[in-house]
Each structure stands twice: as structure tokens, then as C-alpha cells.
């Protein structure tokens, strides 16, 4: 397995496709989040067709001016199809321009993942299973993270390399381990969040309580880990510009995410009982399906995925910058393993 690239392999196309994949997947996650927020998963009862029409031939007037849940569900399908096409483009460009065998394997893995995700979405509709919607919601961020990893691995930073940060091997090793642990914890937190969000109406109140408890506990654990990551990056501030962006993004996004989490609870269930004597809590009426409610709840989902994306970026960049013989060769394989 070679990690070296010939001149011919310095084509920008794999990276362009990978970045396009990431850019198209993020809105897809938003729209997917809206599908759940508006409970629109079954707005179109058939799949892969839409009310008997080919996906791409469904009358645009009905789509744009029909019911809102149909608009977002069909929009989600169209955007999903676009992501699928970009993935095919990515596979083509990698096989055309990139001779790294593991990268070719990764390109096939991401294609497999997008097919699996599409299939899960279809199965959710055909079987009308909300649990499949939950799994579909968990695979989405994994795909997004995988796309980010591929974007890093096809970038100039990965291929040409940059100056290694001036730090001790212990510090480098710690940062790599910490960023990997943080990445896994964030994904587990997303899965817990998906379970809270997709709780079946037949579930017991006790189950929901346990899920919320673990989601909150994990929020604290993730926040502590991100704070540690942030501190570690500050220590090597001057010599690791490639880690600054994901590190700072994680720090900022976790603050936004915690705030969105609190807001999500308030817009869905109101203020906690101990605040009931406050004027703002006593006078607060929840507005179901309001724009503010939908955007807040969906933003909490989307920012969760964005945090995962930056954690992936941080880990892959750290793995590359502080590479040893084994990590340099194995980080790509690890990302494939994590994603699949």
C-alpha cells in the first residue's frame, strides 16, 4: 500500500468532489432534520417513486406549491439523489486520478454508505418503521463525517504535508488519542440524541427518561473532552494552524449546541417547573410547528452533525500531522472502519 503520490495524481478533482459532497450533505442533514421535525417521513407513501412518478419527473408545481410535508420529504429525496450523484463523481475521480489503493477502497466504501443510507430511507417508507428512521438519522452524520475525512485525505494538506508542529511526541500522541475519543463520544451522543428524538409513541416514560439522562450526561462528557482538545491546541497554537480551525470550531459550536439543546427543550416542553414562579416561564406558551420551534430543533440536529464533522477534520488532520509510520498508513483505513 503506497502513500506516495505521483505528479499525475495531484489532480484537484477528487478533493473538489469530496468538498462538494460535504457541502451538499450538510443541507441534506438539515432537510432530513426538518422531515423528522414535521413528522413528514411518510408524506410520500411510496419509494423510490413519488406518488407513482419517477423521482426526477414528479411535477415541480405540486412539489413546490403542495403540502409542506410533501415539499420537504420530496426535497429531501431530491437532495439525497444529488448527494448520490456527487458520490459517484467522487468515485470516478478517485479511480481516475488517485492511485492510493486505500483511497480507492474508501471511495467505494462511501459509495456503499450512500447506497445503504438511501436504502434505509426507502425501507423506512416502505415498512413505515420509525426505528428505521432513527437508524437512517444515525447513518446520516456518519456519512457526513466520512465525507469530511475524504475531503481532508484528498486535500493538499494531506498530500503535500505541512510543517510538523513543534511539540513532544507525548503531546502529539495525547492530542491524537483525545481527538479520536472525542470523535467517538460525539457520535455516540448523536445516536443518543436520535433516540430521544425518534422515541416511539408507544415507548414508556421510563425509557424516555433514561435516554434523556444519558443524552445530558454525554453532553457534559463531550463538552469536557472538547475543552481538553481546545486546551491542547492552545498549547501548540503557533505551530499547528491546521488544527486551529477545527479546534476553535469545536469550542464555539459546543457552546452553540448546548444553548440550542436548552432552547430545544424549552420550545418543545416549556421551562422547568422550578422556574414556574418566574414571569417569563408562567406566561410562556409553546407554539407547536412554529417556525422558531422547527428551526431550533432542527438546528440542534444539524449543529450536532457539524460538530462531528469538525471532530473528524481535527482527528484526520492530527493523525496526518503527527503521523508515525503506522498512523500515516492506517488513518484512512481507520476512518473507513469507523464509518462502516
Amino acid at each position, binding site marked *: 500500500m503506497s502513500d506516495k503520490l505521483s505528479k499525475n495524481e495531484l489532480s484537484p478533482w477528487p478533493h473538489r468532489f469530496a468538498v462538494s459532497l460535504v457541502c451538499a450533505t450538510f443541507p441534506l442533514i438539515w432537510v432530513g432534520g426538518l422531515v423528522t421535525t414535521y*413528522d413528514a*417521513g*411518510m*408524506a*410520500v*407513501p411510496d419509494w423510490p417513486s413519488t*406518488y407513482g412518478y419517477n423521482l426526477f419527473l414528479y411535477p415541480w408545481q405540486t412539489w413546490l406549491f403542495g*403540502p409542506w*410535508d*410533501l415539499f420537504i420529504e420530496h426535497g429531501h429525496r431530491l437532495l439525497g439523489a444529488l448527494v448520490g450523484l456527487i458520490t459517484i463523481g467522487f468515485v470516478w475521480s478517485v479511480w481516475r486520478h488517485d492511485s492510493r489503493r486505500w483511497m480507492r477502497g474508501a471511495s467505494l466504501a462511501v459509495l456503499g454508505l450512500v447506497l445503504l443510507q438511501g436504502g434505509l430511507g426507502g425501507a423506512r417508507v416502505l415498512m*413505515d*418503521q420509525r*426505528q*428505521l428512521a*432513527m*437508524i437512517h438519522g*444515525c447513518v446520516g452524520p456518519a456519512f457526513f463525517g466520512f465525507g469530511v475525512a475524504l475531503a481532508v485525505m484528498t486535500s493538499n494538506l494531506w498530500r503535500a504535508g505541512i510543517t510538523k508542529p513543534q511539540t513532544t*511526541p*507525548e503531546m502529539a500522541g495525547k492530542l491524537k488519542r483525545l481527538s479520536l*475519543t472525542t470523535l*467517538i*463520544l460525539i457520535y*455516540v451522543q448523536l*445516536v*443518543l440524541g*436520535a*433516540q430521544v428524538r*425518534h*422515541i*416511539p*409513541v*408507544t*415507548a*414508556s*416514560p*421510563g*425509557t*424516555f*427518561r433514561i*435516554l*434523556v439522562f*444519558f443524552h445530558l450526561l*454525554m453532553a457534559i462528557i463531550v463538552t469536557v473532552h472538547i475543552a481538553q482538545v481546545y486546551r491542547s491546541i492552545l498549547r501548540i497554537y503557533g505551530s499547528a494552524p491546521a488544527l486551529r480551525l477545527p479546534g476553535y470550531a469545536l469550542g464555539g459550536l459546543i457552546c452553540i449546541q448546548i444553548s440550542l439543546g436548552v432552547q430545544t427543550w424549552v420550545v*418543545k*416542553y*416549556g421551562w422547568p*417547573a422550578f422556574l*414556574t*414562579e418566574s*414571569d417569563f*416561564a*408562567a*406566561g*410562556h*406558551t*409553546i*407554539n*407547536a*410547528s*412554529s417556525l422558531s420551534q422547527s428551526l431550533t430543533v432542527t438546528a440542534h440536529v444539524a449543529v450536532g452533525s457539524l460538530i462531528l464533522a469538525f471532530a473528524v477534520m481535527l482527528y484526520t488532520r492530527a493523525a496526518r500531522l503527527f503521523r508515525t509510520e503506522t498512523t500515516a498508513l492506517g488513518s484512512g483505513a481507520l476512518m473507513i472502519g469507523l464509518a462502516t
Partner: protein
Amino acid sequence: MELPTRKAMKLSVIRHWFVSAVAVVALAGPMAGCSRNEATFNRNEAYVKNQERLTKETFSAERKADLDEVLSGLFGTPDRPIVPALGDIDVASVMDATKLHFAAGPVGRDERGRARGLYREHCAHCHGVTGDGGGPTALFLNPYPRDYRRGTFKFKSTPRQSKPTHEDLKRILIEGIPDTAMPSFRALPDNEIDALIHYVRYLSIRGESERSLVQYALFELEPADEEANIEEERLFDLTSGNRSDRAAELREYVGAIVQKWLGAEAEATAVAPPSWLANGAELSHEREVELLKHGRDLFYGKVAACVKCHGDSAIGDGQTTDYDDWAKELEPTVPGALDEYLALGRFVFPPRNVRPRNLRMGHYRGGRKPVDIYWRIFNGIDGTPMPALSEVLKQEGEEKIGVTHDDIWALVYYVRSLPYESISQPVAVEAAYQRERQ
């Protein structure tokens, strides 16, 4: 290369195992429940227990199975609701089959693009598929989501023990209930609100019928007599020769409940304006001060006795240890009883005390319009300790202890003025009131 310390290694191992354990739980979780089949209605075990304790009888497993079968025959399932056939009774006005179809079942659209599953989309996460207030989120909410199965609704224009009108339920759905998790569904179109109202009535009538049939089985049917080798009389025995008589009898029970709902519209309390506003008259400042003083007298007086629960300062700190009717059914004040109820399982929650409203805040759960507050005072709040002053209503000039229509309006004026009255510096007449009360 420096080796990690023993402590660091231990911490690393703990972290590894913790992450692995949580990951397994979190990732395995989505798979759980994939085999879940059609949604079902929960049996009202708490009420069965309540009646067993009351009658000292046992509601056998066979009878429970009968009860489920009868209810399923009359009302169908959450996915396929049935409107019970009750002869001449106009059941469709209360629960229309088309509207029930619209609101019931899993969320989605049918082949013709018509919405389905409105109840599960908007209500079931809190109120539960059965309408028992036992949805997944229930334990986090305070107050608990309403259990419809008693047929008791708090904020309505009709008297206590009466059913709410269509408009009452619509008002709650549109306005929501401040300071609770009950949202406003203002964004929903009228036909969806209408379908939800029909479905809530359906769940309520089903729940009331269940309670009624439990009573019927315990009070009307013959229990087993082991000494005489007689088996207990079944609630509904398909092999019995008199099953059509029994079916007719059971339908009568359900019919009586539906009749109460049908009568709700006629029972709404019509509210006339106070005499001082009759014929378009305007209220002078002096008269308003006088009315506030009168309202305050009533608030602290012995007839209305609002002070007893809402407290001397009207901040809701009077009687704070009472329970609402839903909680009282779990006999929270009877030693040992509550444990029996809580042992019934996941849909019976620890009772909470009902808190009288803090009237100084100016936020009222049942609505802030004068007529809303009039209804609360006149009709009370069903299912809670808030009494109805209609019980002591008297005509103007009548010589008996009670309150007149205008007195209630004076109370409404006073209650609405409370958020603007300083507790530390009440109106100038405070000293006089203190003397009177002493």
C-alpha cells in the same frame, strides 16, 4: 519514550470501557423495537385496582381479557378506530368516523395523499396512544399530561361534572396552556383541529366506557363461588345464549356516556355582562375602585373564600397539599395504598400536589379574558379543588348566604387587578380590611 503512569493507564482503561459500554447501549438501542407491531390501547390498571380496593373484590384475569375484548369490539384499535353503533344516538356529532380515520393510526399520508395519524404526530408523545397521559415524555412534564379517560376536562365553559363543548376543546388547542407543555396548535388548519377534537372525545369516551364496564363487572356480575362450584359471570361470553342482551346492555352504558357529551353544548354557561355595563354604560373610576374593594371583600370573605387556597397574598401559597382527582384516585393519603398503585407499572406516576394559581402573575392557564376568569370562578375547575361559586349563587336582593352574578364580576375585576397591586403596599383600604378580618 516516556511510559504512561499507572494512574493514567487506569484512567485510560476506565474511559475505554465507559465509551464502549455507552456506545453499545446507544448503537443497540435503535435496533430495539424494530419488531414492534401495531399500537395497542393500555388497560386502565390503576382504576381496576382502585375499584378492587373499594369493593374488596378481585377483577380476575379472565374479566380483564373480556374487558379488552368488549372495548376492542366497541371502539376498535388505535390504528383502526370504530365508532360504536348506539342505535338512535347521534354518535357522529361527537366522534365522526371520517375524522377519526384522519386523526388515528401511524403518521403519514394515504395513497390519495390525505393526512393520517394527526394524534400520534401532535399529541401521543405526551398524552399516550391510549389518551392516558402516559406518553414517553410524561414523567418530565409538570403538570403531567391530561389523562382523558376520566372524561374530566379542566378549562371549559360548562359546569363541573359536565363535558366541555366543542368550542372549549378548540380554544385549548388553539391557545395552548401557558406554563405547561400543552402547546398552541394555531398553525394547524381547522379541519385538522376538528379531527383532533373528535379523536380526543373518542379516547375519552372509550376511557370512560372502560371505567364504567369495570364498575359494571364488579357491581352487577356474579362473582365466582368456589364452595358452590360456580364460575364467575363473564363480562361478555361469546358462548353464552344471552350475548345479544348483554351486548345491548353494554351499549347502553356507552350510550349514556355519549349522551353526556351530546348535552355539553346546551350546558355551556352563558355569561351576561355585569349590571353596571348594561345598556352600553361606561364604568367611572370611582365605581371601579368600589368594585375592586367589593371584589377584595369577596376574595377574603367566607363565602368565596379564595384566600383559603390562593393565600393571604394571592400568590398561591394557601392550601398547597391537596391533590387533583386524577391523583386522588391513587389514594396518596392512605398509608401503603400508593405503593400498590405504583407497583402496577410504567404508566402510573407518583402523584403531585395541585398548586393554586399565583394570581399576582397575571397568567392564567385557562385563558386571561374576563369571560375565561368568570367561567373559572362560576364553574370552578373540574377535577381540582377549585370550587364553583355557582353552587352558592343567589339573585340580586335575595336574603341568603351566597354570591350574585355581579359579585362574581367584581371578583373577576379584583383578580385581574392583582398583578398591578403591590403586596407590600396594598390599596389604602388595607388597614380597614385587616381590622375586619381580625
